[in-house]
């Protein structure tokens, strides 16, 4: 069996009296299209924060390509290939999409500490910015300050920025959150066009999106992993229907 792209071993996170993450273990294989679902308050965002190093676990380990990264900061994990997007946009309001992407690319290829060369004078970086802008349909807005972009475009920039770090594992925290119906297709198209070799963990409320996108689904309830399986299994699972899908069924 190949080395998993990302592995969580017995993760526990205690916030005072609240047990937000309760002994969670799971793996994501290279190139996987996995989804993490669960009702509100199930601890999905805490789990993402544990995996990316924003929050330190009370117990347990995070392994990236079999390397123990539990003690590393989030920016160190990014450089090892673990990237994420945010449920609430975390962008640079006064920078343009082109500048933001250029920044992410320079950081990745090691020219981020270069203090003398004017940003954007390396043809390879310019070419890569252009490629990302085109892939996410942001060419038209490339030179606008990010804060002036329509919300749907900002969501796309969220994903583009994460992809600019060339991750091996990409965690998408509700990429379609708050996106109006008519712009959802753009998000879905962007998601299905993500590079096949990148392992993706999608955290999402939108069941249509989850079942269109994922080939494997993990269900988190009250900080614990309830079950894992293929979409058909999850859809048929009585316990999942009870705690989660039941909400929709009424």
């Amino acid at each position, binding site marked *: 069996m190949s080395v998993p792209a990302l592995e969580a071993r017995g993760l526990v996170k205690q916030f005072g009296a609240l047990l937000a993450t309760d002994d969670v273990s799971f793996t994501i294989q290279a190139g996987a299209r996995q989804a993490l679902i669960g009702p509100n308050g199930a601890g999905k965002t805490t789990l993402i924060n544990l995996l*990316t190093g*924003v929050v330190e676990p009370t117990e347990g380990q995070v392994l990236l390509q079999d390397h123990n990264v539990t003690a590393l*900061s*989030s*920016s160190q994990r*990014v*450089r090892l290939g673990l*990237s*994420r997007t*945010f449920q609430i946009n*975390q*962008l*640079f*309001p*006064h*920078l*343009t999409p*082109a*500048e*933001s992407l*250029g*920044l*992410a690319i*320079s*950081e*990745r290829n090691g*020219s*981020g*500490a*270069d*203090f*003398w*060369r*004017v*940003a*954007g*004078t390396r*043809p390879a970086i*310019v*070419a890569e*910015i*252009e490629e990302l*802008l*085109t892939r996410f349909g942001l*060419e038209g807005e*490339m*030179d606008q300050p990010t804060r002036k972009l329509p919300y749907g475009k900002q969501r796309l920039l969220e994903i583009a*920025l*994460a992809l*600019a*770090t060339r991750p091996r594992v990409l965690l998408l925290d509700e990429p379609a959150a708050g996106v109006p119906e008519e712009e959802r297709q753009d998000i879905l198209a962007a998601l299905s066009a993500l590079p096949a070799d990148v392992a993706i963990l999608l955290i999402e409320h939108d069941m249509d999106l989850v079942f269109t996108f994922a080939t494997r689904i993990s269900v988190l309830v009250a900080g614990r992993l309830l079950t894992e399986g293929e979409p058909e299994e999850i859809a048929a699972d009585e316990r999942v229907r009870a705690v989660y899908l039941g909400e929709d069924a009424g």
Partner: protein
Amino acid sequence: MRAAQPTATTRRLEAHLHRRARWRWPEIVFWVAALGAIVVLPSRAALINEILIAGLFALSLDLILGLTGIVSLGQAAFFGLGAYSAAILASKGFADPTLGLLFGAAIAAVLGLATAPLLLRGGDLTRLMVTLGVSLMLGELANRNGWLTGGADGLNFSMGKVLGLFPIGFTGQRNAALYSFAALFILFAVARRLAQSPFGLALAAIRENRLRAGALGIATSRRIVAIYTVSAAYAGAAGALLAETTQIVSLDLFDFHRSADVMLMLIIGGAGYLYGGIIGAAVFIVLRDVISAATPEYWEFWIGALLVVLVLIGRERIHDFAVRAASSLAPDAARGDAA
């Protein structure tokens, strides 16, 4: 390698990323005017020199506050340290101004590097207090170590000629202003370049959204330490220039009001675009000169009033108003607008 023919998108992208790289004509006018003022107004050379030095000091604050979003009320620590370092070096017989300038900047940079880690934790209030505390400590150290610093009496010393050619000081005030101008211009050009580099872009990212900056793999702490060190060197250079061109240093260089004044200057001129500190220094010092000639006691009242107006109304709205007022004063343009 890419095809030889760049697409329209590539060209637009490159033009966008380079848009600030070329020196534009208002910038060139700015620097020519500053140099012209020294040549045309030799009787005001001392005042101009003070503005240039204060402008460099405010530029040092802009590097951390405007570019990176790190507040400080302790820039006087580096200003005073740079001044005393240059003064002590000169009093020991090494009186070359350029050497003293580099020495003052270097010693201040060392203190910046040593104290930068204190800025990495806590919020803005913590940073204000930590930076203020460091400058208080340094002022007291200078006070207590009179064998080196002259204590409360300060230190008088004489300076050599700039590049061995141009005497500065009381008899060479125009030379002093030209010397400060050269130092300011070179350090400004370096800062301008730095602001447009990937490093400068990363500083903007830290200012705009530190969480996301970290999520892109930017080592935010290291970048903050680096720019704080550069900022300290700039403040130290400003202090060294003041010491060398006045040939006296005293304990008030470490005073809290220096740190506060430099922040006022930066806010008056506008933070984040590098010219704000110099413009603010000019406004601040010229206003002080003009108002204190009329009403010696009350000039701070008017500076205070200006500050309140600027912060409450906002610089952009004042700018728009000025543009509209200017176009209504030009009758042709006004008629054109009305039609």
